Each structure stands twice: as structure tokens, then as C-alpha cells.
């Protein structure tokens, strides 16, 4: 597939898949593109003669010819050989550090089995954490930037160890000329003034979990006694965000499920609370779980994404903008093609480490023994398994090669592919459909901005 065209918010948008060029076209060009590759000029004139005059179609075709000549439409994929012939070494430069395989909540959709990852509940020791820092510094080669996400379970259940690990990381990054950036993902229940100050000072990013409206959040994000967390966490999250250094990142992040398919209302609710960086993600659960996203939910979900996109456009007009994580596509920049064709990095650039020091391709593979890459105390990983992940890029995923969105999603989530299809090379179809819709919406917002339709 060389082009993708769609209509959204009254605009006809055309994406040239391989170059990344984006065009807004009128109805005549939009219709001509249905036939341009397979029909002659005279045939197209004939086919469209009941809608447009000969002159109009000829003029439209001339403009398409021009875009083709200037390599902005129907361009070829020139990147495949770069990937196939890439023998450059891989370095591990991102890590999900599972500080706690334990949690003080019992969220109904938790992929980590309330933090335990289907194993025993445990907290990471400072010793393991420091070994993990040594491991990533040693395996990061000549990469300067290293990212470490403090994750769980609930990582703040192990706050003293977090402090020890970060102090160690700071001394080691200086010695080795690295820049280690920390993110923490927390359910916000344990935030207090001391922790808020510490996070603000030491974390490049903080991800604060809340699902949106009280009735939605409290149905799912519950304590062991069944009580909801909304009333406790919302003020804490607000305090964290208010105190946040404005040069540093934060995300207020929730999950939507089959039970709140009207999640536009949750995004709008969070925006109304004054949050500017919002992410609401689809739940990923096995098909028979009542909370899982079903194929038949997709039309409603698409409608919700469109409403969120329109809300962003409208609020921007009023000077009251917010950002929705999945719409943060920079059409004039963003990652280079080398990054886009190399996938998410799980298993060869990005790994997860358990409290016991075991290494997995990412947080979602934790506990799946066949995917264990090694242990931080050994200091190295299973190269063969790591290479399987490195080679699981779009050119080895037949479905991706037929998909217009391949340079935006880069092959999707390997863990989801494995969970649903038993193969990291076979994309999770429902995830793909949502991804494509999000990209369409993201690009439509950028089109509005570029055309200054505000």
C-alpha cells in the first residue's frame, strides 16, 4: 500500500506512506486516486464523467502527476535494505525496573496480577537495583541517554530502595558519562509532600494513574476492601501536577475498558481538572474477560477518538489546550526512519528487570519463562532470543507490510502480538485498528493546525 486516504472533520487527507508526505485534497483528486494506479487517464475521465467535467478531472490528474514526479505521492519503500543489511550492534538503553511485585490496590484489569506477575509478591532490594544500573550502563555501549522506568506493582511501596538506587545511578552516570532519566509510574495512593518533592526533583517523567470520572475509576481501581480510590488520589495527583517543574514531563494516565467505551468523557473530565498531559489507553486483556475490548466495540471507540480530537481542536481555539498522548505526532519531525523501522525496542534496546534481577524483553513478558533473557547478576543476556526481537521489525511482519500505518506504529506491541496470536510477528488486530484510528485523528489535528483552521 503506497497511499492512505481518508475523510475526517470535512477534510480529505492523503498520506504518502513511504515518504511521510501529507496532502489535503479536494473531492475530485480524492476520487481520482481511487483509479490512478490502475486505470488510464481516459478511463478515469470516463468513470468520473457523471460527477466532474473532463477539464476538472484532467486538471486534478495533472496535479497528481506533479506530486508523483516530485516524489510526494506513490513513492517506493527505499528503507528495506537498510534494515536487512543493518549489522550495527544493539545496545540496551531503556529499562523497566520492577521495583515492587506487589501492590496496595486490586485493579480489576491488572495485567500484572495485582502486582505479583503471577509469581510471589516481592520487593526489589537495593542490591538488585544497583546491579540493574550496572547492567544497563555496561550494555548501553556508546548511547548517552539511558531511560529507567520505576514500575510495579506499586513502586512507592518500596520508596526507600528507590532513593538508594537513584543515588547510586547518579554517581555511576557521572563516572561513565551517561545521562540517566527516570520515570515513575504510580497509582498515586502513597503520594505525600515528601514523595511529591522527591519525584519532582529526581524524575524526568511521572505517570499518574487515574481512569477519569469517579464512577469509572472506582469500579475498577479499588483497594483490597473493595473501596474506590478516586477521592483519595485525585487531590494527590493535582498536588503533584501543580508542584511539577514545568520543564519536566508528567502524564495523567488511565485505562478504558469494555465497560467505559464512552472514554471521551473521561478524557474531557481530566482536562476539566486542569491536566494538560493526558493518556487514556485501551485495556489489554484476554478475549473472554468481560472488561476486554471486543471487535464490535471498535465503531464506538473510533467515535470517541474523533470526539477527543475535535475537543483538542476546539479547546485550542479557546487557548485551553491539552495533549492526548497518542495524538502527539509531530508530522514535521518525530523520530527518524531508522527508529521507525526498528520497532519498539523490546528485547534488544529495552528490557524489564524483576525484583529477583531476572531480565525479560519488556514488562509485559515478565513471568513468561520462555522469554527470560538472563539475570542482572550474570550481566549479559541471551543473544539468540534478543536477536529474535531485533528481527521482529515491520519487514518481517507480513501484515505490517500491507499496512499504511507501519512507519507510525512500527509494528505495534510485541507482547500483545504474542498474547493474542502466539507470535510476535503477527499483529494484534484490535490493537492495530485502534492504532490506525488514533494516527488518523492525530494527523487530522495537525492538518487543522497547518491550515490554521482555528
Amino acid at each position, binding site marked *: 500500500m503506497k497511499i492512505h486516504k481518508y475523510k475526517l472533520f470535512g477534510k480529505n487527507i492523503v498520506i*504518502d506512506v513511504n*515518504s*511521510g508526505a*501529507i*496532502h*489535503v*485534497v*479536494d473531492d*475530485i*483528486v480524492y476520487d481520482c486516486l481511487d483509479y490512478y494506479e490502475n486505470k488510464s487517464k481516459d478511463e478515469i475521465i470516463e468513470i468520473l464523467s457523471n460527477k466532474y467535467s473532463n477539464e476538472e478531472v484532467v*486538471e*486534478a490528474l495533472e496535479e497528481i502527476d506533479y*506530486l508523483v514526479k516530485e516524489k*510526494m505521492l506513490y*513513492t517506493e519503500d*527505499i528503507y528495506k535494505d537498510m534494515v536487512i543489511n543493518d549489522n550495527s550492534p544493539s545496545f540496551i538503553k*531503556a529499562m523497566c525496573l520492577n521495583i515492587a511485585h506487589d501492590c496496595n490496590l486490586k485493579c480489576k484489569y491488572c*495485567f500484572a496480577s495485582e502486582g505479583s506477575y503471577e509469581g510471589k509478591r516481592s520487593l526489589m532490594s537495593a542490591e538488585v537495583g544497583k546491579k540493574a544500573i550496572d547492567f544497563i550502563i555496561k550494555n548501553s555501549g556508546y*548511547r548517552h*541517554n539511558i*531511560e529507567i*522506568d520505576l514500575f510495579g506493582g506499586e513502586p512507592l511501596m518500596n520508596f526507600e530502595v528507590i532513593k538508594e538506587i537513584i543515588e547510586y545511578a547518579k554517581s555511576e552516570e557521572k563516572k561513565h558519562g551517561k545521562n540517566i*532519566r527516570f*520515570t515513575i509510574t504510580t497509582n498515586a495512593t502513597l503520594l505525600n509532600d515528601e514523595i511529591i518533592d522527591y519525584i519532582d526533583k529526581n524524575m524526568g517523567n511521572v*505517570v499518574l494513574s487515574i481512569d477519569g470520572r469517579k464512577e469509572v475509576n472506582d469500579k475498577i481501581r479499588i483497594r483490597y476492601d473493595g473501596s474506590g480510590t478516586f477521592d483519595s488520589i485525585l487531590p494527590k495527583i493535582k498536588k503533584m501536577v501543580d508542584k511539577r517543574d514545568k520543564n519536566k514531563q508528567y*502524564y495523567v494516565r488511565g*485505562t478504558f475498558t469494555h465497560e467505559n467505551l464512552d472514554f471521551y468523557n473521561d478524557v474531557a473530565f481530566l482536562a476539566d481538572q486542569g491536566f494538560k498531559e493526558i*493518556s487514556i*489507553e485501551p*485495556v489489554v486483556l484476554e478475549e473472554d474477560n468481560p472488561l476486554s475490548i471486543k471487535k464490535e466495540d471498535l465503531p464506538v471507540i473510533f467515535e470517541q477518538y474523533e470526539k477527543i480530537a475535535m475537543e483538542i481542536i476546539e479547546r485550542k481555539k479557546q487557548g485551553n489546550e491539552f495533549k492526548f*498522548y*497518542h*495524538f*502527539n505526532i*509531530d*508530522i514535521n519531525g*518525530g*523520530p*527518524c526512519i*531508522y*527508529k*521507525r523501522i*526498528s520497532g*519498539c*525496542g523490546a528485547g534488544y*534496546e*529495552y528490557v524489564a528487570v524483576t525484583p529477583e534481577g531476572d531480565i525479560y524483553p*519488556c*514488562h509485559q513478558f515478565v513471568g513468561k519463562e520462555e522469554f527470560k533473557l538472563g539475570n542482572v547478576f550474570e550481566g549479559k543476556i541471551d543473544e539468540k532470543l534478543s536477536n529474535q526481537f531485533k528481527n521482529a521489525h515491520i519487514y518481517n511482519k507480513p501484515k505490517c507490510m500491507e499496512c499504511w500505518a507501519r*512507519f*507510525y*506504529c*512500527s509494528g505495534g*506491541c510485541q507482547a*500483545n502480538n504474542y498474547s493474542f496470536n502466539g507470535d510476535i510477528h503477527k499483529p494484534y488486530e484490535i*490493537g492495530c485498528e485502534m492504532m490506525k484510528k488514533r*494516527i488518523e485523528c*492525530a494527523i487530522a489535528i495537525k492538518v487543522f493546525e*497547518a*491550515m490554521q483552521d482555528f
Partner: protein
Amino acid sequence: MKHVKTINVGTLKASVVKPGCKECANSCQSACKTSATVANLPCEHN
């Protein structure tokens, strides 16, 4: 052009000249954790 407004001439093709330094973040590190979108990462090549 009368029928076409080009918003963007093609960032992907243009980025071939970059070195592919891979200093940018990994998609799951930011906020998603379940639904990687590589295209929304900022380039960090200096």
C-alpha cells in the same frame, strides 16, 4: 495547486540523512506501557 494543499513534503524520506543515533526514548517508557506508538517520540539527535 488548485486541488491539493501539501501540508508536509515527507519527513521520513528527509530523515534518511540523520545518523540513526537511537538516543531518543523508547515508546513504552513514556506513558503507554501497552500500545507502542513510535511516531510520537521526539527526535533527540543534537
